[in-house]
């Protein structure tokens, strides 16, 4: 049986990464290296007002004094920040010929990724901000959304067009001082998405950002800011992919969400950065800080993530539940295969009274990978009658991989209830054979079992994302039965 196991394990393919292609286009790229001049140059490129440059420089100077966090259950190779280029943009972003101002080559790239930049062609009615390397290429449905008073644009545009909103909110939930990567991001971010939903408005369609890394030897540092005013609602989706390369590439993003009274923001991610090959060569280093604040009463934030990509994932989408009766949710499926490493989870900070949070984390580890859940549930003294329920499950394929759970619970009052449940299970050869015997191939059997296991989380995704995510789970685990 050992023999069988080893045989199957050795068949671990460098699973079919569909999005590993590279688009050969003219780009404008900064030479590698990081210093104050580079920070100034990025700000100048984006024609930013003075306050943004100040913001960046403060962050940069702070970053110089910081060190990379080492508390995660990750082996992080040394990253040389002077070897990375901090700005890369397609030269011909605005195609002169095309009516809507997008270079046909870029349009083709996004079409290959399943993202149509053509509003007429989009039946699904999802507005998208398409970001390639350091810049936003196109934001669709801006006019339609503007009719509802919704601002949806690239971050660089928002900084120029809506400086007051940016001044008020940027860095208000995730200050640059928060951690090493937020400081770096604040210094060198070049684009991202901005979304503002005015009072009482329910977004008439889903909004999304698609991040694409294309250029080599670059880092991607983007920022997303979502503001939902009183009584508003938006469902926001985020997707990302990158070419297959032997070198690692750094992605350090920040997402901030502000939710006022009775507003609800639902944020869904399918993270599919290039994970590296089956021997652990290449792949994206994904260091992301995502945090939302429920400022008003009965406000709600729901994070749903399906993490299948990246060589290293370091990511904890969190909720600060400040308003009374506010609600935070974190639903996660994280898959690691081959030599991938993930340390992901959430922080639920209960500050308001009667606040409620739910955490559902489903880790799936295969190959030689390591998958950790790390979560903090903190209930402060005045957060009377608060509730948390956490369910952290791990599923193992094979016996060379690791699954770990690090729950931290701090409760400072007596009438709040915090519950934590955890399970670990394994896909056994017997289960696979049982499926085989009924005519189901090993690959499909794993797909069935894994999707069954992750169903609870996948069900929270918007329809079109859910189907994609299901397929992705199966592909990510191709050939990994033990």
């Amino acid at each position, binding site marked *: *049986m050992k023999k*069988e196991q080893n045989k199957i394990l050795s068949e671990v393919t460098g699973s079919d990464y569909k999005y590993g292609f590279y688009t050969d286009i003219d780009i404008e790229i900064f030479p590698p290296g990081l210093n104050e001049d580079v920070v100034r140059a990025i700000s100048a490129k984006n024609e930013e007002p003075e306050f943004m440059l100040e913001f960046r420089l403060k962050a940069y100077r702070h970053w110089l004094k910081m060190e990379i966090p080492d508390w995660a259950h990750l082996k992080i190779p040394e990253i040389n920040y002077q070897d990375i280029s901090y700005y890369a943009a397609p030269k011909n972003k605005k195609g002169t010929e095309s009516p809507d101002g997008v270079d046909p080559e870029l349009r083709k790239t996004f079409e290959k990724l399943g993202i149509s930049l053509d509003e007429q062609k989009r039946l699904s009615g999802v507005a998208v901000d398409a970001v390639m390397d350091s810049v936003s290429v196109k934001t669709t449905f801006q006019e339609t959304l503007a009719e509802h008073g919704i601002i949806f644009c690239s971050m660089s545009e928002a900084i120029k067009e809506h400086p007051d909103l940016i001044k008020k909110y940027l860095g208000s939930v995730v200050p640059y001082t928060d951690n090493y990567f937020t400081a770096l991001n604040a210094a060198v971010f070049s684009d991202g998405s901005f979304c503002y939903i005015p009072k009482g408005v329910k977004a008439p369609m889903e909004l999304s950002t698609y991040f694409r890394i294309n250029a080599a030897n670059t880092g991607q540092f983007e920022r997303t800011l979502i503001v939902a005013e009183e009584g508003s609602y938006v469902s926001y989706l985020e997707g990302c992919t990158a070419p297959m390369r032997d070198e690692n590439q750094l992605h350090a993003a920040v997402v901030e969400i502000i939710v006022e009274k009775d507003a609800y923001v639902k944020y869904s991610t399918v993270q599919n950065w290039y994970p590296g090959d089956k021997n652990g060569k290449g792949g994206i280093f994904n260091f992301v800080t995502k945090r939302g604040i429920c400022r008003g009463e009965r406000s709600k934030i729901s994070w749903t993530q399906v993490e299948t990509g990246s060589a290293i994932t370091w990511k904890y989408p969190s909720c600060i539940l400040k308003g009374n009766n506010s609600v935070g949710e974190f639903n996660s499926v994280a898959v690691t295969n081959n030599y991938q490493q993930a340390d992901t989870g959430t922080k639920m900070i209960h500050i308001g009274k009667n606040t409620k949070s739910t955490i559902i984390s489903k880790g799936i580890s295969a190959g030689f990978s390591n998958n950790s859940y790390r979560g903090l549930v903190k209930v402060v003294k005045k957060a009377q009658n608060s509730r948390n329920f956490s369910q952290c499950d791990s599923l193992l394929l094979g016996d060379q991989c690791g699954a770990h759970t690090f729950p931290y619970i701090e409760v400072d009052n007596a009438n709040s209830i915090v519950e934590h449940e955890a399970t670990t*299970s394994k896909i*056994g050869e*017997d*289960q696979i*054979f*049982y*499926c*085989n*015997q*009924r*005519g*189901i*191939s*090993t690959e*499909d059997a794993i797909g*069935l*079992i894994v999707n*069954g*296991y992750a*169903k609870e989380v996948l069900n929270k995704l918007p329809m079109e994302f859910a189907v994609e995510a299901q397929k992705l789970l199966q592909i990510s685990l191709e050939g990994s039965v033990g």
Partner: protein
Amino acid sequence: MNSMLSIKDLRASIEDKEILKGITLEVKEGEVHAIMGPNGSGKSTLASLVAGKELADVTGGSITYLGKNLFDLNPEERSKAGIFLGFQYPTEIPGVTMVNFLKTALNEHRKHKGLEPLSAKDFLKLLREKKDMVEIDSKLTNRSVNAGFSGGEKKKNEIFQMAMLEPKLAILDETDSGLDIDALKIVANGVNKLKRKDNATIIITHYQRLLDYIIPDYVHVLFDGRIVKSGGKELALKLEEKGYEWIRNQVNGN
């Protein structure tokens, strides 16, 4: 009648211990064979080899199924070619509902035959039909595969799956053990209803009781990795009466 399964001098070992020591067995269309034999004699090992589980290493002999070398087919191909194994110990698969599992399996079988997947409506209709046939509790199909099923429910579930997939060759490994008398009749009834001129059944059992309901054409006694005796239905009765001591003495030449 056409030959369906032809096993010739099959030898197999698990971790260098020889478990099957030269098995020869011929099963033709329309036949029912029963295999009996003491615990550990190799019955399940034989069944799992036919189904394609790489549990034992084949060290000699051949298995031919419908004229093809069975070893050329992987387990799912064997299933789609019509081989069904009713497991002695059905596996639990938490999170995967019976409905989803059966739909996937059935559509794989249909794809193999060049048929379109069944529509949701037709699938549910078929599901209901077969459920009635093997009298299994309606709720079971909404639960995860075998998860938390009672011993008897698991066995009935095997017959239910058999009814859904309509195999050419069904091997039922002790499907009767753990069943109450009513369930035993239901299972036997199910098997009989599924019987056609062009399919065959191999029943592995310890009890002659099942053979009162499913009348076998042949009974074989598997003893220490060999088929030491074959006969008609009366052999089962004789075994029940005399026990395996009788066989042991015959084998040892006493």
